[in-house]
């Protein structure tokens, strides 16, 4: 079953880190990603650019409304995700706890809505 691990953190934290800390932080995520791959649970992941690059779009009365900024204004921002294929929620929570993001932010674990006919390994 696929789970999306949504990584929330205070994005200003990254900019406050020294370049050495940033390098080590990136290396920790690289190691985590490699481990997910070797365990055969990795499906995909991405890091997002800061929320000041966000734009929201929706249709109001048939007219598209485009706004600067994020949809939800929160103390911690969505900064990236991992999509994993884990046997159950316990396993997914175990992987979430190992994610470096768990120690500098919060990880929301969401099961992916099953798509009929989608092939699952």
């Amino acid at each position, binding site marked *: 079953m696929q789970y999306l691990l949504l990584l929330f953190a205070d994005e200003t934290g990254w900019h406050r880190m020294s370049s050495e800390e940033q390098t080590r932080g990136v290396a920790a995520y690289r190691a985590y990603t490699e481990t997910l791959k070797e365990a055969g649970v990795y499906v995909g992941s991405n890091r997002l650019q800061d929320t000041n690059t966000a734009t929201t779009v929706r249709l109001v009365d048939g007219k598209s409304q485009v706004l600067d900024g994020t949809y939800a204004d929160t103390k911690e921002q969505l900064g990236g995700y991992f999509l994993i294929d884990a046997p159950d929620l*316990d396993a997914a*929570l175990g992987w979430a706890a190992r994610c470096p993001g768990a120690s500098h932010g919060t990880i929301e674990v969401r099961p992916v809505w099953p798509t009929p006919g989608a092939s699952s390994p």
Partner: protein
Amino acid sequence: MAHARGQFAVSDDARAAANAVARHSYGKLLAYLAADMRDVSAAEDALSEAFAAALADWPVHGCPDSPESWLMTVARRKGIDGVRRRRSGEAVSAQLQAIADMHAECTGTSEEEVFPDRRLALLFACAHPAIDVSIRAPLMLQTVLGLEAKTIACAFLVSPEAMSKRLGRAKQKIREAGIPFVIPERDAWNERLEAVLAAIYASYAEGWSEPDDADLTRRDLVEEALFLARLLAELLPQEPETLGLLAGMLYTEARRRARRNVEGEYVPFAEQDTRLWDAGMIDDAEDLLRRASAFGRIGRYQLEAALQSAHIERRRSGRSDWSPEVQLYDALYALTRSPVVALNRALAVAELNGPDAAVAIIRTLSEDKRLAEYQPYWAARAALFARAGDEREALHAYEMAIGLACDPAVRRFLQRKQEAILSQTPPSVA
């Protein structure tokens, strides 16, 4: 020092004492009621009703002479009334805190035993072979200590909702399958006791594996597990393995402060400042281990404790010969066939016979699927390959160990080790 249970530092001791009384009483009362009603959930409901009644009655009419008997009488009446509202440990938990404070004022010192202690039978019921292995420890923590499902869920890293459901199912199983609240017969004794010990050890290991002191939920679990181990050693003093289990936990607990330096960084055992170890706790453990060995019945937990004792003695004395450790690991492996023991044995072999001998063992262990996501395996593998001069294998193992680490301090420690290799390695190899 943060305060998990008390808001004011001054009242912490009093509060801890009150909590101890409540925990002591809660388990005793629930064990008695559950055995009586043969139904843990119904007993929890009845006890919850009794606590509610006490909170209303005691402030008005004063504390009863024997709070435990008072609670028991009311709970049994509520139980007979057939109160079957589905209350879980959640409802009890808040009451437990309030009762704890009142109870401590009532009794002051220990009150005389008014009914037999059936907690041992409750522990055996929780670790019955018909109960799923993974829920035994949570079930003990809830029934004997009155812990909330959500607290237990955090410690075992599962969702609170799932933990509640599993606890509910386990209690339903006890009721429907008619699991008895008895101390098992002699012929089934060893296996059943092993299950109780394993469940207590599991709660401790869950608390210990996440040594971040800021994480109070897990920190508390260590204390709860120690409480259970102490209780078991108290109830079964003639069983050397119960003493061995408690000794092993105390040896580990004694080193807690030394596992972090002032910057909060992880300090491996070999580099710990032995002055930070809790000498009193180590003495207690030594004493327990001596008492256990006097029975002349060796077992897994005694061997594990003996290994900790040897490690501590070696650090204190500066002994460089590792043969006692290797021999103890040999005995422990013969008994358990555990890959984790084989791994630790390899680390001791590295000290005795050099890293190449250990690397040979590690290579055979890499076949074992049970170690594939076991973080300490990769950390040990990395260190051994690094010592043996195989940088490529060491770097890969560090990568896995870092990726599997939950503890940020451990992650940083491993990253520094990995960086040290990278800085020595010619660029073409890296």
